């Protein structure tokens, strides 16, 4: 019994210290600043890319990223600025890509007449990008390339 506790103690000590070391190696934008502290030298804010050129999707179900600025876009219960171009009825005039038909489905897969409330807040999934090189090297391989191997 005594030995078991001893082994458990040593085991958990080793485990915890490994986690602690591992945490040090994770690249973060906050540069290891604890959540309850303020980063003294935060990375400078950068303007969102505004080139209007679509980017590829990194994985099959990735929400497309936004290729333009969305500064001060009003998106609340009263107004959806995104849909003033991307809604089904506006795309003809705006020539913006229409919201995917999946956005008209409720959670049971029934099609609704308008964008489903659960898909209304665009910025939950769709984000802008900045022109910047990756923080860390990315060795992700797309499923298409994996399949052809």
């Amino acid at each position, binding site marked *: 019994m005594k030995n078991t506790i001893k082994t458990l103690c040593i085991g958990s000590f080793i485990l915890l210290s490994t986690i602690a070391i591992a945490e040090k190696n994770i690249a973060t934008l906050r540069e290891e600043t604890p959540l309850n502290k303020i980063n003294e030298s935060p990375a400078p804010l950068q303007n969102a890319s*505004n*080139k*209007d050129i679509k980017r590829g999707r990194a994985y099959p179900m990735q929400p497309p990223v936004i290729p*333009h*600025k969305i*500064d*001060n876009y*009003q998106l609340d219960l*009263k*107004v959806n*600025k995104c849909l*003033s171009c991307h*809604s089904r*009825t*506006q795309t003809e*005039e705006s020539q913006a890509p229409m919201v995917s038909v999946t956005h008209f489905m409720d959670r049971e897969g029934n099609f609704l007449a308008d964008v489903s409330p659960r898909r209304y807040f665009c910025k939950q999934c769709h984000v802008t990008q900045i022109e910047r090189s990756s923080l860390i090297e990315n060795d992700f391989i797309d499923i298409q390339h994996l399949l052809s191997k």
Partner: protein
Amino acid sequence: MITLLKRYWDIFRKPAVHYSLGFLTMGGFIAGVIFWGGFNTALEKTNTESFCIGCHEMKENVYKELMSTAHFSNGSGVRATCPDCHVPHEWTNKIARKMQASKEVWGKVFGTINTREKFENKRLELAQHEWKRLKANDSLECRNCHNFEYMDFTQQSPRASVQHSTALAKGEKTCIDCHKGIAHQLPDMSGIEGWE
């Protein structure tokens, strides 16, 4: 009452006996300068931002909303104040707008929008007044600063340069058609053209 008015009218019509023509002309001229100057000074006073946000209706609603937009704070430090966009700069139109503003005094006295809720309920109506005004004068208050002639399309994003060099250049659209809600929050836009 009638006799009283008649007496004053008779005095008004009678030529002056004791004052010289020179005195009356000069006196009238000086009084005119003072009254006209005073009128314009008072008018200009009502045309300042500090006057606008002297009322909490403006300060706590629309002014707060303006503060987070590019027309208040931006890289170059050039900003628009309330009257830059909401009062015509040309004299005749300015006076016409100032006369319309007497309705706003009425609203202030009777507390038409003295709470956030009341303001939100009236937001659509008030916004529509401004959209109508800017649509009618071809977004004149925008164009007082943003001159189409000097727009460099190469500096604009592809989307912006396409819209500006076609619809705006041809005069089919004016600034306010696309740039609603540029400086304040929008009302519920369901049913508004272009937002269906």
